[in-house]
Structure formats: structure tokens, C-alpha cells
């Protein structure tokens, strides 16, 4: 069983690539891989609970932990009350910890 850190930096409404990346996270989890999705930059926009389209639904249904860069939330004025409660805020140092926690972790940036 592999371990994957998927980092999404793009606005989900910017291109269809972004939902594909969410699907990749969900599919890896379905196949028994350990996956974490980390949202940075405009990727943080998907963390809003009122965002149209249930963007992270399949990811969360597959119990993929979803973290969002606290700095990106502050930059975009996304308050705690506006955030999907299953998406947890994290400092960028947490991303470093995740990347280095276990040898052989595969890190993908989109």
C-alpha cells in the first residue's frame, strides 16, 4: 500500500483538470492507497461549504483527509464558518511533515 500527498493549487472552477485531480485522490483511496489532499493557493476555494457542485464530495466520501493551507484561507478571507467542516486548516509546515513522514511517499502537485 502506497502513500500519496496530492497538492491542489488551482481554483476548481478554473479548469476541468481540477476535478480530475480530486478524482485521482478518491480513486487511489478506493484502491487501498493512503492519500491526503492538501489545498494551497486558489485550491483553497474548494474548501467553502457553499461552493457549487459538491466539489470534494467523492474525496470526503472515500475518507481522504483534506487539509487546507491556513495562509491561503486568510488571503482569501475564508472564515471558519464558511469552510466545509471536514476540511481542516493546516500550516504549511504540516505539509512538510506529511511529505517527510515516511520514506517512499509520492508527492504530486497540480
Amino acid at each position, binding site marked *: 500500500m502506497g502513500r500519496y500527498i496530492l497538492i491542489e493549487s488551482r481554483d476548481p472552477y478554473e479548469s476541468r483538470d481540477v476535478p480530475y485531480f480530486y478524482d485521482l485522490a478518491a480513486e487511489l483511496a478506493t484502491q487501498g492507497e493512503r492519500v491526503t489532499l492538501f489545498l494551497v493557493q486558489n485550491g483553497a476555494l474548494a474548501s467553502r461549504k457553499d461552493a457549487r457542485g459538491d466539489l470534494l464530495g467523492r474525496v470526503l466520501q472515500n475518507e481522504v483527509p483534506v487539509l487546507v493551507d491556513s495562509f491561503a484561507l486568510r488571503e482569501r478571507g475564508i472564515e471558519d464558518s464558511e469552510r466545509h467542516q471536514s476540511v481542516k486548516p493546516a500550516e*504549511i509546515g504540516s505539509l512538510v511533515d506529511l511529505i517527510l513522514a515516511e*520514506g517512499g511517499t509520492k508527492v504530486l502537485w497540480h
Partner: protein
Amino acid sequence: MAKTLTICIMEPPYESANSTTSMRIIDAALQKGINVNVFAYEGAVSLTVKDQKPHPNPVHGTSVEEEKHPTTKELVAGLFELAKEKGVKLDWINCGLCVDERGAGNWIEGPRRGGPADFHKWVQESDATLVIPTK
């Protein structure tokens, strides 16, 4: 023994949030006592160009001093300072061919010239690798 993180960055300065996020990741790793290798590829070789100058903001009517416009060369210099302070290694390679193409060879102190073979070696030797591509 300290862990080592290798990061490949490709974004030119002042282009997108990728540069800022890269710097934040490098900063966080150094703060944690982790050695960091940075392979600056393509436009990212310009991050360390010494000739960068801050500018005033005519829209806001602010001077250079008031604007405090950060340059990427200063941010990278700060990362080298941090590495020294923390007693960890920051090794920064600018891709030589990318530098030559862009005439971007006048750097601040710290980076060195190299090539993709160095990146390959780092990937094999490091605990983890992160590639941050352009869009």
C-alpha cells in the same frame, strides 16, 4: 541525522503564487531543521538574479521605501541566512542551460550552476522530492 527535502521549482519570479508557496515550504523545512535542495529550472533561475530592483507604486502614489516591494532575490537570500542560523544545508542549483538562454547569470551569493543530472542525483539521495511545475 537531519532529513533532506529536494524541491524543483520552475516558475519565474513575479508570475504566480507558486513562487511564494515554494519559498514558504523551503522556509518551513529549514525552520524544522531539514536540509533542503532546490533545483531551479527554466524561468525559476531568475529568482536569484542580483539585478532585481524594488519599485515605487505609481497607482498608490507610494515611494520605493513606502512600498517595501519584496524581491525574490531578497527572499532567497533570507533563506540562505536562515539555513546558516539553523545549522542546516540549503543547496540551490540554477540550471545552467536555462541561465544561459535567459542571460540570467548574475546571481546573489549562494546558488551554484548545475543541470538535470544534479536533480536526478538529489532525487535518489533525498528523503522526499516535490516538483512544483508551471501551469
